[in-house]
């Protein structure tokens, strides 16, 4: 069979190694934070975020949040959120136990759990891992999918401001 392709030109495809793109790690190989491994200090005074550091917020596993969460920084959803998340240029991570019923707006969105609604990372990056179940709409500039259960309208939006979809 390969002999029949010997006369191919520059686009010779017989036996050629073609790069597909950067590989995405499987979810099981990614490090995760173990809550029990993080001893919490006793809180004796109001906690202030360290200056210069990105604030981190988490909706923990078993927690249900309903409404709109606005948080410039890193947002981890391990519980359930019905409503919307807006972290601006921050990052939203939906863990395997996380479930979002609504919209998320961020620069970077990583999904390991469930999302039903709009994932809006216009001008940014969306990663849907193999444990993710995503339906609705996905806006992205860079998209990686690794076997996720995906039933969505996909839209490439290179510019966060205008939602441009030009190439």
């Amino acid at each position, binding site marked *: *069979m*390969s002999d029949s*392709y010997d006369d191919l*030109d520059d*686009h010779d*495809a*017989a*036996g*050629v*190694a*073609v*790069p*597909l*793109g*950067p*590989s*995405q790690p499987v979810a099981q190989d990614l490090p995760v934070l173990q809550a029990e491994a993080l001893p919490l200090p006793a809180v004796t005074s109001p906690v202030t975020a360290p200056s210069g550091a990105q604030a981190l917020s988490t909706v923990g596993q078993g927690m249900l949040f309903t409404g709109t969460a606005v948080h410039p920084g890193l947002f981890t959803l391990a519980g359930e959120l019905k409503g919307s998340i807006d972290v601006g240029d921050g990052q939203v991570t939906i863990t395997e136990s996380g479930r979002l019923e609504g919209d998320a707006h961020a620069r970077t969105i990583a999904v390991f759990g469930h999302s039903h609604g709009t994932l809006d990372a216009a001008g940014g990056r969306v990663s849907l891992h193999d444990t993710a179940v995503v339906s609705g709409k996905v806006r992205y500039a*860079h*998209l*990686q*999918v*690794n*076997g*996720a*259960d*995906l*039933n*969505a*309208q*996909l*839209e*490439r939006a290179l510019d966060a401001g205008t939602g441009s*979809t*030009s*190439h």
Partner: protein
Amino acid sequence: MNTPTSPPPATESNQDTLVIDPVRMNIVNRVAAGTQLSGHLQFKGGLLLQGALGGTGEVVGRLVVWHTGQIIGRYRVLGDLFILGQVGLDAKFVDDETVIECLGTVYVASTGVVSGHLCAPRLRIYEGATLRGPFRTLRPDEAPPVLQPATAEE
């Protein structure tokens, strides 16, 4: 791919690589670059698509849409689908006339552009790929939605 049934191996540079070897991939058909085919077409034994394919039909085996390749219309793929080129008419608009149903895994490489409808049990998209339009995951217990034998008048 190194073996027809294994996923693309990650190389040291963390790049997945597809090795196009028609013998190992059991691909016996090829549409060369510059060729345009349209109508109701059936390919048994996979297809290496380097030209343009339109109309309706079926590919039994693996379908590789090469960098120069383009597929437009309604096709079903009874095997894995590797997209290095274009699926759909125009990358800037959703092409509702193009519907690709794949019963294997769809791999969209960083050079791939999809503007048609896709449905498959499993999807891998590499960074840099462009997808515009709906994608639907086929569940194991779910009958493919429009997998009735494609007809020319569709």
